[in-house]
């Protein structure tokens, strides 16, 4: 961000003597300092978006609280189960899962891992739920709300381009979502590293950190851009929020159901949460029994998530650009 030193100078014309009852202006002086470069105006939009989200407890703070609680719970469980091992990471005791036991007896290759690792792989699913709830209060109504209140006239009568607006909103949402998805994953990963029994194990698992960063970043971006895109579809923020909720919950349920039933993981990967969870498993090379037919591969997951991002941002940009300056001069 460019910081500028503001200097002021007296206006060329002297203000007339204040009349009784005249509205005063605190002694106006012409601004002669430099202005923020055009290319950085999107950061102002981003900051505003973050501040707007943070302003009311129910819009964002509540979900951050949920994420913090979830992280603490996961961390506590990890500490409690720090010495346990599991095959495939599904059951602490084989008796809990007869099929797994049967497979092991039949000679299937078991993937023995520490239980704490499964939280690193799988806790994304918890945070996806909180991320979705966050989009309902802070993401899925953004553009619609601005369309409704005439905010585009406010923005585009200034040196703000549609690109600056969309980038600023997206970046703001990303930052908000990062504290729901990315930060908790990194914290859990650090807890996992802290629970390493040997230095070798710690060093070997250091790669978890960039992986957690990647999963968290992709997840935050996917939720931010998808909800931003849906928010640009209709002028009514309540309707866009309802549409997004229906798409996510009902659409996701149907897609996952079809994907699993038809053994076509690609269809299930259209669901953002499922794609993220699968992406996490694939990234950590974690393959529970017979799950290749259920969980799609890393490439499919990435394509799905990036498609959500591209489509969401494209819809938002298209709508903002099309509507942009419509209100300017329109009333005269």
């Amino acid at each position: 961000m460019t910081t500028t030193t503001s200097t002021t100078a007296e206006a060329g014309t002297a203000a007339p003597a204040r009349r009784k009852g005249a509205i005063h202006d605190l002694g106006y002086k012409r601004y002669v300092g430099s202005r923020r470069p055009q290319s950085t105006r999107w950061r102002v939009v981003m900051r505003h978006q973050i501040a707007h989200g943070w302003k009311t407890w129910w819009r964002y703070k509540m979900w951050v609280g949920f994420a913090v609680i979830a992280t603490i719970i996961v961390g506590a469980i990890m500490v409690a189960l720090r010495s346990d091992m599991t095959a495939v990471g599904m059951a602490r005791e084989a008796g809990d899962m007869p099929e797994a036991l049967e497979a092991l007896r039949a000679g299937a290759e078991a993937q023995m891992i520490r239980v704490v690792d499964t939280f690193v792989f799988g806790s994304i699913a918890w945070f996806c739920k909180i991320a979705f709830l966050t989009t309902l209060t802070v993401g899925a109504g953004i553009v619609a709300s601005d369309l409704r209140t005439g905010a585009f006239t406010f923005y585009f009568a200034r040196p703000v381009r549609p690109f600056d607006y969309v980038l600023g909103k997206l970046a703001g949402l990303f930052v908000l979502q990062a504290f729901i998805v990315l930060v908790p994953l990194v914290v859990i990963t650090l807890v996992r590293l802290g629970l390493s029994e040997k230095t070798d194990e710690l060093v070997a698992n250091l790669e978890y950190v960039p992986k957690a960063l990647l999963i968290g970043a992709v997840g935050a971006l996917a939720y931010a851009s998808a909800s931003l895109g849906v928010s640009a579809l209709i002028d009514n923020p309540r309707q866009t929020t309802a549409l997004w909720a229906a798409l996510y919950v009902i659409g996701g349920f149907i897609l996952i159901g079809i994907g699993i039933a038809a053994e076509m993981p690609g269809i299930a990967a259209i669901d953002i949460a499922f794609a993220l969870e699968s992406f996490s498993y694939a990234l950590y090379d974690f393959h529970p029994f017979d799950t290749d037919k259920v969980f799609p591969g890393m490439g499919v997951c990435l394509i799905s998530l990036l498609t959500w991002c591209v489509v969401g941002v494209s819809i938002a940009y298209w709508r903002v650009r099309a509507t942009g300056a419509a209100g300017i001069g329109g009333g005269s």
Partner: protein
Amino acid sequence: MAELITLERVAKRYGNVIALQGVDASITGRIIGLLGPNGAGKSTLLKCLLGLIGHEGNARVLGLSALTDGPLIRDRVGYMPESDAFLGGMSAVELCTYAAELSGLPRSEAMQRAHAALYYAGLEDKRYQNIEGYSTGMKQKVKLAQALVHDPEILFLDEPTNGLDPRSREEMLQLIDEMPERRGCSIVVSTHLLPDVDRLCDAVVIMHQGAIKFSGPIEALRATGATGRGYVVEVKEHADRMADALARRGAAAKVKTPVSLMVELAEGMTPRDVLGVARTAGLQVRGIEVEQESMEQAFLRVIGVTPPAPAAPAGGAR
């Protein structure tokens, strides 16, 4: 005075519709009225000037090209829209601070100027309230404050007194009138309210069917329509008798009130002859003024519309 806006063959088409048909003008002044009926091309011109839409020809604002320097122009001009253009859940001071930051001011300066602009607009007591709870008059003031918070050199005001009660309208007109001196900016007012233009503006741009029909000082506009032989004559009493006496000398006289009449002098007559006629008729003249064309008459004349004939006053038109 330096030219604020220069237009050279500026044209804009929307498909088959010609919104601007190659307009030329050099616009300058303290407060400039932008007039025209609906569909005249005012909105399109405004968008062109702000660099929001492409166009043919060359439009320059403060010496900057609207085609290539749109963002720079928008840094140096303010725009007060007619319709509401607020962001949900914000107070006036938050909105104005945000507006100033978007216009490139550093945050501390933006906040300081937001308070100052709201003081100037008369919202000092209410500036921390949510805008959604404001009255129409207060919203107009917030719109004005957000337009001038970044210290623009030109302010575009779109129907600034629309929907205001008489008291709020008077306050708004006073604010606008004082602004060029107190804030060092020029103002372009787009409005349908010709009395507002008459009161505020020293220059006008009149548009009709995508063309600029007139651009220049108001005096020049009125001078264009004046015959040079029209006078308003005030008498102590019996304006009707005065009208009769003038008519006998060949002048066309129309009684406005029992003590005033409009007179179109006959060829070769001078105002001194009016005094002579009054003396002969035994009437006392209290004043003779050159007839000024009203804004409405001038506007209708420029756009080529015949003004409707006024209703005959009591005493009969002559």
